[in-house]
């Protein structure tokens, strides 16, 4: 089974590139396979964008059009070499994607698809009305591509080129998804808060993945122009853009091979329907869109993971090979001396409209301490926590961390300064393994980018990341679960995994937001032991907690909050003895 996973790609590549060209196939089937290859490249972009990153675009066909028209215009009218037009087409699509992305990707996810609809329509009308692009007739007489002196004039010649590109794209995409930037992209789908807290610029990766999708589309368009030897506006319209999305959804929007399966099924079924439906109905017309539209709804309702998931289920992924035994250590930051002033919270304040959620709270944390932040429900503990970690913006006040003013900085900058946190409601990527989730914490301690990852030049650093992730899982006693999918864990281990992920950032201060909430008694004990051990190792911890027993037995000092204000601060014994605290929790006698 493991062999199938390792060699599956090469078997498929050998079949597509060596076996099929050797078969005596009719030209019709070569054309079909060429179109499937072209569609696969374009819908692979949508798999990355929609299935992996949780964004979507209806403009994929328009980007294909950018690549195709650039190739056709420059090669047919200007005599530019096709190999040069490829890069010009890619550059143009990158520019467009950067502009569209920069405008829409700071807002909610649905503005990107809306912008791509409008842009796709506008571009299509532009192509159809420009004199120099041949208006509705398009451009003809596109020269063939020449590879090593051989002109690829027929379908068979283009077949090898199209599928070489398609397979290379699939390989690069698979490499990317299993890498540092790939994990960052996979984190986008479940909201930006956790990824930002790990130091990831989610805006940047949204742009990266949108640009990648556009580049894949432009490559598909370039190949298309030289395969058809002519271009016109109709295959780059909004309907085609929706069809690309349909291919990805049908095939399996979360899988690289879903794009290939979807493209194949859609192309073959479309041809059958185009013959069958008009005969059945008695008049000609694009009736296949009815079937596609209904199928799209049915797939999203009953099989949202697409057709490939049924295949993937039969071949479960084997556990990652443990190849990091001798990996180099990741860089570590200088640790603060015990007793050194670590965090100063100075009169921080948060107002939501007229409501003062946090009212001028101040406290300090010294290195090596465990400080608890407690208070009744709605006291503003988690809000204070979010103010310190930069998840929420300060209305007023200041936060100093290791002598650096961090108040008002975005959470990824605060993470860079050495503060790391967990979340009250566990935030993780359920479809990644525990190990991969924890490795996300090492993001800021590593540097490899998207291009290196796609070319597989990132392995040394990847090994170091996994070695660190495993070390942190061992530290909290979870190494035996590292190959499980995070989504399959119970709540207790999920919370521990979040702590391991935070530790993987090599923090100077660890912030835990209600780590014991929802845990069973034994799980709480295990958690308390882990925290005591971390303290013994010299780590400083700020703990927001509800559970009194848990906090009292663990902390050096406690800050009590009520209605957004600081009630008292002191040792656990002082807090326990305080009548004000008792009144806050239990009410006063009348």
């Amino acid at each position, binding site marked *: 089974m493991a062999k199938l996973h390792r060699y599956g790609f090469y078997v498929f590549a050998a079949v597509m590139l060596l076996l099929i060209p050797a078969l005596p196939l009719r030209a019709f089937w070569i054309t079909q396979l060429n179109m499937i290859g072209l569609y696969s490249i374009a819908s692979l972009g949508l798999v990355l964008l929609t299935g992996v990153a949780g964004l979507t675009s209806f403009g994929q066909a328009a980007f294909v059009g950018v690549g195709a028209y650039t190739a056709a215009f420059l090669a047919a009218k200007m005599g530019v070499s096709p190999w040069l037009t490829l890069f010009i087409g890619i550059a143009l699509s990158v520019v467009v994607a950067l502009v569209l992305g920069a405008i829409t990707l700071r807002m909610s996810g649905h503005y990107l698809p809306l912008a791509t609809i409008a842009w796709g329509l506008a571009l299509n009308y532009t192509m159809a*009305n420009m004199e120099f692009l041949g208006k509705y007739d398009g451009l003809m007489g596109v020269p063939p591509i020449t590879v090593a002196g051989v002109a690829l004039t027929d379908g068979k010649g283009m077949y090898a080129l199209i599928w070489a590109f398609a397979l290379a794209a699939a390989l690069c995409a698979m490499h990317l998804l299993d890498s540092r930037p790939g994990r960052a992209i996979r984190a986008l789908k479940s909201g930006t808060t956790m990824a930002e807290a790990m130091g990831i610029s989610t805006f940047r990766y949204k742009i990266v993945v949108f640009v990648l999708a556009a580049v894949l589309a432009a490559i598909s368009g370039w190949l298309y122009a030289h395969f058809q030897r002519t271009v016109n506006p109709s295959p780059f319209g909004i309907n085609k853009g929706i069809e690309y999305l349909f291919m990805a959804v049908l095939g399996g929007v979360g899988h690289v091979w879903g794009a290939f399966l979807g493209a194949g099924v859609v192309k073959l079924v479309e041809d059958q329907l185009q013959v069958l439906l008009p005969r059945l109905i008695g008049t000609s017309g694009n009736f296949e869109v009815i079937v596609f539209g209904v199928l799209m709804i049915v797939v999203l309702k009953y099989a949202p993971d697409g057709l490939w998931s049924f295949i993937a289920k039969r071949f479960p992924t084997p556990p990652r090979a443990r190849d990091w035994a001798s990996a180099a250590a990741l860089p570590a930051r200088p640790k603060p001396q015990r007793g050194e002033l670590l965090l100063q919270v100075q009169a921080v304040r948060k107002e939501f409209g007229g409501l003062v959620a946090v009212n001028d709270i101040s406290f300090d944390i010294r290195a090596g301490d465990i400080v608890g932040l407690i208070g009744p429900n709605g006291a503003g503990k988690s809000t204070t926590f979010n103010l310190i970690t930069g998840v929420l913006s300060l209305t007023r006040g200041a936060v100093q961390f290791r002598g650096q003013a961090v108040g008002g900085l975005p959470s990824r900058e605060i993470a860079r300064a050495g503060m790391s946190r967990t979340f009250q409601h566990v935030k993780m990527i359920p479809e990644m393994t525990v190990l991969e989730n924890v490795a996300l914490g090492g993001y800021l301690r590593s540097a490899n980018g998207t291009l290196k990852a796609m070319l597989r030049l990132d392995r040394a650093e990847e090994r170091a990341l996994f070695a660190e992730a495993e070390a942190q899982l061992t530290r909290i006693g979870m190494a035996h679960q590292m190959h499980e999918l995070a989504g399959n864990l119970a709540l207790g281990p999920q919370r521990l995994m979040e702590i391991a992920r935070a530790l993987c950032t090599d923090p100077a201060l660890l912030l835990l937001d209600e780590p014991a909430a929802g845990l069973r008694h034994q799980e709480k004990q295990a958690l308390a032991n882990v925290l005591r051990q971390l303290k013994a190792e010299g780590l400083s911890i700020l703990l927001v907690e509800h559970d009194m027993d848990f906090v009292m037995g663990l902390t050096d000092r406690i800050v009590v909050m009520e209605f957004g204000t600081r009630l008292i601060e002191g040792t656990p014994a002082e807090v326990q003895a305080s009548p004000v605290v008792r009144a806050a929790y239990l009410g006063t006698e009348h």
Partner: protein
Amino acid sequence: MDFSIAGILALDGATNGAIYALLALATVLVFAVTRIIFIPQGEFVAFGALTLAMFQMGKVPGTVWFLLVMAVAAALSELVNGLKAHQPMARLGRRIAGIVVYPVAISLVAIWAAPLKLPLLVQAALTLALVTPFGSLIYRLAYQSLADASVLVLLIVSVGVHFALVGLGLFFFGAEGFRNPSFWDERFSVGALAFSGQTVIIFLASIALIVALWLFFERSLQGKALRATAVNRLGARLQGISSDSAGTLTFTMAAFFGALSGLLIGPTTTVFYDSGFLIGLKGFVAAVFAGLSSYPQALLGAMLVGLLESFGSFWASAFKEVIVFSSILPVLLWRSLRDPHTEEH
């Protein structure tokens, strides 16, 4: 360009803008209540205009069969779900009757009335009565069981619905385009500006509908229930407002708005089975202008889209669609600079 041409263009733009406004309001309404970005809103426009055209020719409109097919499909899916959930037969029967009775009744009326060549206004009323039930049927068939899905999934479902409706539109209405007769042939002139009775009707109908919508939200319990759902679905549900009935009602209203827009736009342009998409998207651009959330901004946006279109077609007629759809980009840029952080899960 002189003043009179500018006046004509402005009037023309505002007239179309009034129609886009109805579509933009429907889009904002549907998104606010259900989080569905309803791309197929424009399809109702084409259905409305084509249904009236068929009545005008004394034919039974394809809408009738289309509606019956949808009703049967919705009834079947209700039956299957009911049997799976082991619902009592009597209750299941009532629910299915509730879905089927109105479409069947209005279809029978339409079949009876079609050859009689009734007055235009009666035919228009029949058209509205035929197209409006599509809303709730589409909601039931495509969206209901996905009510808790993400905005992204609902959006992809919407393009699926758009595909299916356009294809079915071709099947039931044919590929031929129609232009409807004007509701009011009178012509008026104020100074250099001449305008038709149809223009007056478009403005009056749009204003009346906007006022009715406002009254509905402000004064009626159902309207308030929809507003509550828009603010907080779970909270509204806890107060006994079912998300399903809110969704059904919203889609019914959206279909009514769309069908009415179709009646209004029918006399001004030739409508084909697939014309609705572009018309609806212009309403959409206006709704995006409003951040899919503000009704007054949607009105303003619709007027701007209408004006941009009419002046665009004067200056560069081949590029008027390019101008209208490109205008969404500066709007989005302005939105993103003004209000960058609106994350949704």
